[in-house]
């Protein structure tokens, strides 16, 4: 082997190594998990059962029912907000808009914004809000539902908090997290929606997540 050939050989190995390691990149799976035993072809095998987003059913800004089945074969980003929120919501919406612009028109990607103030945020208010934000109601759902149900969903499914507090600006306390959910309804990432760096990470991670489904 000549020196040139040797160099070429080493470079090829390096290239293979680098490309393999990057395509193998996977996001962690968050939440509780338990080992379950099941029978496959008469053999008992142990499998892992992951925590998933439980069944839900809400109306979106077009009064269309959105439930788990509407999100089959989609990855999505969820957050909790209310339209009259003066504190962190406008920053979150500005950042979410940035993510939306990146994945606009991608049929595998949806956005869910749950209002935590259904008393004020009626469906027409949500419709007006989404129009003024300039987003497509087929890709970004603004969801209206019973307050207790939404608060409970935030707490148990998304590990996010929201509760009423008269002392807080706007009267409601809530965390500003964007939650990334995969096609199996498992949480794959949580990002501070007020932090530009973390939102950039979300954009990168969404691409990684989409790639997971492409290689199969």
């Amino acid at each position, binding site marked *: 082997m000549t020196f040139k050939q040797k160099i070429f050989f080493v470079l090829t190995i390096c290239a293979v190594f680098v490309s393999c390691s990057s395509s193998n990149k996977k996001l962690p799976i968050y939440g509780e998990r338990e080992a379950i035993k099941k029978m496959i072809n008469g053999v008992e095998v142990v499998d892992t059962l992951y925590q998933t987003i439980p069944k839900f059913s809400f109306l979106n800004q077009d009064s269309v029912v959105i439930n788990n089945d509407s999100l089959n074969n989609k990855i999505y980003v969820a957050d909790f907000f209310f*339209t*009259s929120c*003066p*504190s*962190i919501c*406008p*920053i979150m*919406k*500005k950042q979410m*808009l940035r993510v939306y612009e990146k994945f606009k028109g991608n049929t595998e990607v949806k956005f869910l914004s749950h209002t935590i103030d259904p008393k004020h945020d009626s469906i027409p208010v949500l419709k007006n*809000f989404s*129009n*003024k*934000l*300039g987003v497509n109601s087929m890709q970004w759902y603004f969801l209206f539902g019973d307050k207790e149900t939404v608060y409970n969903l935030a707490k148990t499914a998304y590990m996010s908090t929201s509760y009423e507090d008269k002392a807080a*600006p*706007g009267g409601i306390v809530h965390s500003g997290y964007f939650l990334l959910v995969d096609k199996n309804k498992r949480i794959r990432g949580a990002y501070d929606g007020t932090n530009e760096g973390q939102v950039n990470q979300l954009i990168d991670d969404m691409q990684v997540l989409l790639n997971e489904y492409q290689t199969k």
Partner: protein
Amino acid sequence: MLYFSFTLLVIAILLTACVNEEKVKYTRYFTDGAQLYKTNCQNCHGANGDGLAQLIPPLTDTSFLRKNRSQLACIVTYGIADTIKINGQTYNFKMPANTNLVPIDLAKLLTYVTNSFGNKQGLYDVSEIENHLKKCR
């Protein structure tokens, strides 16, 4: 003659002192105003005063801010529920009240806003703010 030039000199010194005092005041208001903007306004109107889509208006409409100079203190204090036109675009989402801000805060805040984001209106004085607040609708 000597006496005359001395008087001139004194007047000149006094004048510069006055001008400087005004300039120092402006700089102080502007700097404090930037801090007040950050804590009270920036979440919605943004660090560059660019607002959010058609929901939150930008603060870059120089002619609106100039025409409504006497209304700005009232808008900041009591919020606004009317439809307004900014840069030719209509905005109708409600702006919340900021009754925590006292006249001196408003003077500093508005000095900052009306001299940033492409605006150049000079100093807002506390007395001017107090006058404007008396006429809020």
